[in-house]
């Protein structure tokens, strides 16, 4: 016989909601007091928040705890998150493929991506810088335009400047 658990699941949902409500009531009562006590004992706002989260996570959800943490501790958290994000972007930028440009007689012969520096006089710049550079250079008249650029795979041997 197939069991219809619809009503049971509804009851469970109600129990969960009631649990969260009651937890929120207790958290509202205690989190501000605990926070003030830690600050009085010399904790900085963000470490105080972290300690309360760590100590109370077995009782309440993090969201419930943070709801009653003063803004000064939350702002610090946002600052640290933003800082971590900037660092991550920097790291990503440094590991992005670079572009190798071969130039002869004032004309670009070849652009290729590669993963190693060479000693053949070619120029290396970051892909982002190359994009900025190309966007900044005004279009030349057709008669002065160089040969079309070719992009070769990483493993290709570069064309030497004559």
């Amino acid at each position, binding site marked *: *016989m197939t*069991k*219809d*658990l619809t*009503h*049971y699941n509804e*009851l*469970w949902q*109600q*129990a*969960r909601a*009631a*649990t969260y409500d*009651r*937890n929120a*009531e*207790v*958290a509202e*009562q*205690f989190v501000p*007091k*605990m926070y003030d*006590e*830690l600050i009085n*004992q*010399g*904790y900085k706002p963000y470490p105080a928040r972290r300690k309360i989260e760590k*100590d*109370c996570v*077995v*009782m*309440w959800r993090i969201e419930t705890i943070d709801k009653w943490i003063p803004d000064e501790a939350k702002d610090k958290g946002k600052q640290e998150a933003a800082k971590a994000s900037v660092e991550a972007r920097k790291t990503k930028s440094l590991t992005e493929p670079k572009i190798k440009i071969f130039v002869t007689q004032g004309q670009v012969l070849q652009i290729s991506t590669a993963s190693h520096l060479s000693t053949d006089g070619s120029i290396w710049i970051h892909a982002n810088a190359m994009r900025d550079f190309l966007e900044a250079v005004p279009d030349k008249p057709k008669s002065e335009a160089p040969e079309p650029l070719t992009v070769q795979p990483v493993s290709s041997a570069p064309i030497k400047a004559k």
Partner: protein
Amino acid sequence: MTKDLTHYKELLQQAKTQTETALATVAKRFVPELYTELRSLGYDPDVTRQKIVRDCKSLWIYEVATIVGALQ
């Protein structure tokens, strides 16, 4: 500066006690209803108890004691 966490620990203990009390109240209200519903669907008593403990473990941290207490 040496940190004296005595009062903080007292507050934490009070919070735990009140949380347990609050959860026990919720469990006392809902567990009998959950139990009755499952029994009416044909679940055996032991299976019913095990299912409620499993389903409610994530809700009530002090789960087994809280749930079993509410079942008695």
